[in-house]
């Protein structure tokens, strides 16, 4: 899975920058900023011209942005959603890594579990919402369960991929030194598959965030998803959109943090 990601972002950047500057175009930062301004302007104008009064637009969002962000109820909602995501991810990291390592190194576990893990990974998490509410009730436990369901399988699959691709030499050295199976697993296989594990975590984090939001839509418990649902139903789209911005920021921030961690602490992880 992880191996099929498109080439690293840095690959083409220097030539792009050189090409733009070579032609006397404005430097890219200015270009990006002005594109942002143009996009916001287009949004504002289109909404003003065509859409009803309540539809979110940049000036409206800017007006309510700080008041909403400093609202205690909103902060509680954001905290509840993000905390559920963190808790769910923690469960998935531990359980998913364990299952993934097992699947990657023990053929019987791999053959026995593969179909279940792969098909549940392919299952849209939205589809199991009614089942989860049957089991856990309409409460925060249901949200946590959905977050775990959303993130567990991508952790397991990616860790298994990593554990399977440990170089033979490493395992041979471990065997020559008569390493015990446990220490081979934790001192050789786990570090070697860490980059895969982190790729899985990036995927899992995005899915976990989506899982938390759909669970709140469905279960109607306080959180960012429910904040969006409630405010857009009462036609306060500007307020609701602030929650979307927070969600995007959380997603992008997490992604950036993992990328940085991989690059900084895992030099052996630079594949492709």
């Amino acid at each position, binding site marked *: 899975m992880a191996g*099929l*990601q*498109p*080439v690293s*972002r840095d*690959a*083409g950047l220097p*030539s*792009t*920058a050189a*090409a*733009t500057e070579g032609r006397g*175009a404005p430097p*890219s930062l200015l*270009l*990006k900023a*002005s594109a942002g301004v143009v996009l916001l302007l287009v949004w504002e104008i289109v909404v003003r011209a065509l859409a009803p009064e309540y*539809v*979110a637009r940049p000036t409206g969002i800017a007006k309510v942005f700080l008041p909403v962000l400093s609202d205690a109820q909103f902060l509680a909602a954001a905290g509840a959603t993000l905390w559920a995501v963190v808790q769910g991810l923690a469960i998935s990291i531990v359980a998913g890594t364990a299952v993934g390592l097992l699947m990657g190194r023990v*053929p*019987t576990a791999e*053959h*026995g*579990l*593969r*179909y*279940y893990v*792969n*098909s*549940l990974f*392919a*299952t*849209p*998490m*939205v*589809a*199991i*919402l*009614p*089942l989860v509410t*049957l*089991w856990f009730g309409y409460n925060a436990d249901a949200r946590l369960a959905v977050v775990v369901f959303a993130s567990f399988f991508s952790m397991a699959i990616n860790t298994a991929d990593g554990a399977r691709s440990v170089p033979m030499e490493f395992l041979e050295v471990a065997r020559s030194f008569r390493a015990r199976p446990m220490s081979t697993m934790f001192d050789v296989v786990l570090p070697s598959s860490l980059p895969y594990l982190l790729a899985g975590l990036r995927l899992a984090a*995005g899915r976990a965030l*989506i899982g938390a*939001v*759909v669970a709140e*839509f*469905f279960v109607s418990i306080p959180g*960012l*998803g429910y904040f*969006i649902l409630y405010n*857009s139903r009462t036609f306060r*789209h500007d307020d*609701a959109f602030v929650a*979307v911005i927070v*969600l*995007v920021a959380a*997603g*992008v921030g997490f*992604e950036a943090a993992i990328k940085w961690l991989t690059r900084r602490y895992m030099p052996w992880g630079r594949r492709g």
Partner: protein
Amino acid sequence: MLSRKNDWTRYATIVASLALGAAVWEIAGHMTSDAFWVPLSATLRSLEEVLRNGVLLRQAASSFELYLTGLAFGVAVGAPLGLLLARVAWLRVALEDYILMLYATPMVALIPFILSMMGFGFAPKALVVFLFAVFPVLYNTIEGARSIRPELIEVAHSFRSGEWALWRDVMMPYTLPFAMTGIRQAIARGLVGMVAAEFFLSPSGLGQMIMMGSQNFDTAGMLAAILIIVLLGVALMDLGRYLEKRFAAWRGYNP
């Protein structure tokens, strides 16, 4: 290399694990209340019933219409736009960060806005599937375009290749494998979008079958519909992987 004996034990393990799963499903169904879980046999009976009375076929067709419409628009917009951004470097530099941001946006969060602006009906639901599908295609196509080696374009230019020939012989073949990665992601995300739209906008299709099952305490009906969606998800993911692999070989001349 796997020997024949290893092959045999592998199949035995797979069959045993599937049989074990079915047995656990059946026994768990008998041991718990019907509201929580029903045996596999009851689920299959319910599946047979909806298959016989045509409900499944009708609802699946409705779901597929929605899914394919959204996905088709997603690919039809995402891939050409990605190629355009590939060719026009300044536009790509200007927009790529915003596209990355939209790619990372959980699109489910926009469903309530779409609901209150566009109401019920087919168009808003197709828009949801489209939003789920378009950004993976766009993002990956741009990533592919970014990795086109400038030499290739220079060579094409030195041979006085026209703009159309350049697109046909360099740009499109080069970015296609990356676009396919995007299409694989779009195939999977589109399915999530489909079920989400059928749940949270106007109920229809397979999503409605799940909802009706859960509202009528017909757990067997709900599990049958979920089972269909799981199988659909697996089939679509395999299709996506096949497409991606089929064109991945073209990445060969990437250094």
